[in-house]
């Protein structure tokens, strides 16, 4: 992968059949680097399956899938895991936080778990800057067990971003928040993605939220 590569995601002839018989088809789809895309569709249309495919957690039944320079469909599991840890952040609905830790400690958790990362002062600085950008600057030392649902989601977002991914995959990340909080959370995420040059794929049911994103992919319909 090179920085000059204009594509973050490239899908060709993708087809994936789940265990319950559902078939996801995506003949051709590309996402430019730095793009912000809303992924829409009714329940069961394959939105989460698509994100799991892009994260390299599962492989398609057929087709070619390239994410941030790696052809996932031609890579083994170890390569996909290493690629995911380095370049892809997946933020799910109600992403858990460790209640035993403070806000800052939760954000820095990837540095304690992943062998390729070093917990140094630069990492701490970045964590604090992200928390400040996400409106959690005053809660750095608060225990995660004392956070609201919205605050937890923002902590999870900061934790996803702290390792400098290139692609941020958000799966119904604001589904548990009220509309105002969800909109605020999306705004913050977009701002950070703009500043960091991240590609953002935001899965949502909420058409209002989807309208805030410049591009949209509709599964089970037309984009």
């Amino acid at each position, binding site marked *: 992968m090179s920085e000059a590569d204009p594509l973050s995601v490239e899908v060709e002839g993708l087809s994936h059949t789940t265990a319950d018989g559902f078939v996801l088809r995506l003949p051709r789809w590309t996402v430019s680097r730095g793009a912000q895309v809303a992924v829409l569709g009714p329940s069961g249309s394959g939105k989460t399956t698509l994100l799991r495919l892009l994260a390299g957690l599962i492989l398609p039944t057929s087709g070619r899938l390239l994410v941030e320079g790696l052809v996932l469909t031609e890579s083994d599991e170890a390569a996909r895991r290493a690629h995911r840890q380095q370049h892809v952040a*997946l933020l799910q609905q109600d992403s*858990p936080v460790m209640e*035993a830790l403070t806000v800052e400690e939760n954000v820095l*958790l990837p540095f304690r*778990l*992943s*062998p390729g990362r070093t917990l140094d002062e630069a990492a701490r600085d970045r964590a604090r800057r992200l928390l400040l950008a996400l409106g959690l600057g005053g809660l750095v030392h608060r225990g995660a*067990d004392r956070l609201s649902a919205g605050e937890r989601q923002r902590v999870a977002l900061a934790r996803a971003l702290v390792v400098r991914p290139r692609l941020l995959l958000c799966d119904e990340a604001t589904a548990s928040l009220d509309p105002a909080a969800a909109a605020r959370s999306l705004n913050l995420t977009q701002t950070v993605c703009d500043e960091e040059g991240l590609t953002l794929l935001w899965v949502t049911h909420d058409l209002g939220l989807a309208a805030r994103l410049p591009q949209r992919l509709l599964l089970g319909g037309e984009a």
Partner: protein
Amino acid sequence: MASVHAFGHALWLAWRALLHRPGQAAVIVLGVSFALAAPRFTLQASELVEGLLMSRAESSPILLGAKGAPVELTLAGLFFTGRPQDPTPYAALAEARRWGEAAPLVVRHSAGGAPVVGTSVEYLERRGLTVREGRRFAVLGELLAGASVADRAGLKPGDQLRSDGVNPNDLGAAAPLLLQVVGVLAPTGGPDDGALFTDVRTTWALDGALHGHGAATPETLAGEDADGQALNSAVMLAEEAALESLSGFHLHGEMSDQPISAVLLWPRDDKARDQLLGEVALHPRLMAVQPPEVMARLWSMALQARRGLWVIFAAVGLTTAAFVAQTLSLSLRLRAPERALWRDLGASRRRVALIVGVELAVLFGAAALLALGLSELGLWALQAALAP
């Protein structure tokens, strides 16, 4: 280096997780530690007691005393507790000296709550008792205090100590004696530290058999004192006489007939020991006991009781193990999302296993340390309780 970092992070995460659930951690640590500490304490305590009892017994080869209960004779002769059922005549000492070195023991008096042991200098020498302060007893009425007794009562050479009174309703009993402390022994860690040693004749004075007389006149035989109480002053107040008028003391009856509790004998060799045991076995009034054998028999009975305890400890251990396994299993299930998060954040399966393993190791390590501390504390308390 990477593995050191991984371990450090795992330890940090485990520590934070345990601090977040201190109640659950404390219950597990306490349960496991008690299950571990109880058998360890029992084992070590029994070894400690066995060591104390047997070392004392091993240094006391043979006790001669009146026929009766060997256990009581052994306890009196070694630990100055209880007393033999019947006294032995002092003449047994001379008999015993035919086979080796011997010391008389009289164990039936006390002063300040501590046993007063009538004996001879042979006892002090064979037991290796050295004087820390002052000197050994030399004349009637002098006491040599064991280290613990002296420390507890603040005794030092020159102090006086009154022997404990007998039954006040026993009009025939001898009056308490005021005894002179002339020395304090160095500590030994054994029963000698808790005793007061004196010459065997002083104990006869405590019995009243050795005494001095004042001038017997009609006035003193049954006079009235200032409080209007009837006195018999024919027998001098021993506490005064012992200190001031030793030359006037005399013994009623033969010295060889005076009562002693036992004779502690160190045979000169195996042959002498065997001859002694053979002769005494035929004696109509004396018996010879070998304290190591008596204590070993006593201890084997205690060991049988300990075997019963192991069954209880095994049951407690199994119950605790089941409880801990259930608690940990529930905790692991409840924290499955946490482990899934670690995997999502890049932890390998090995790293997740390391974190869980370290948390368990911290829990069980803390329990083991606490168990060690508890059992050591128990042993310390036991040693303090067993101290003379």
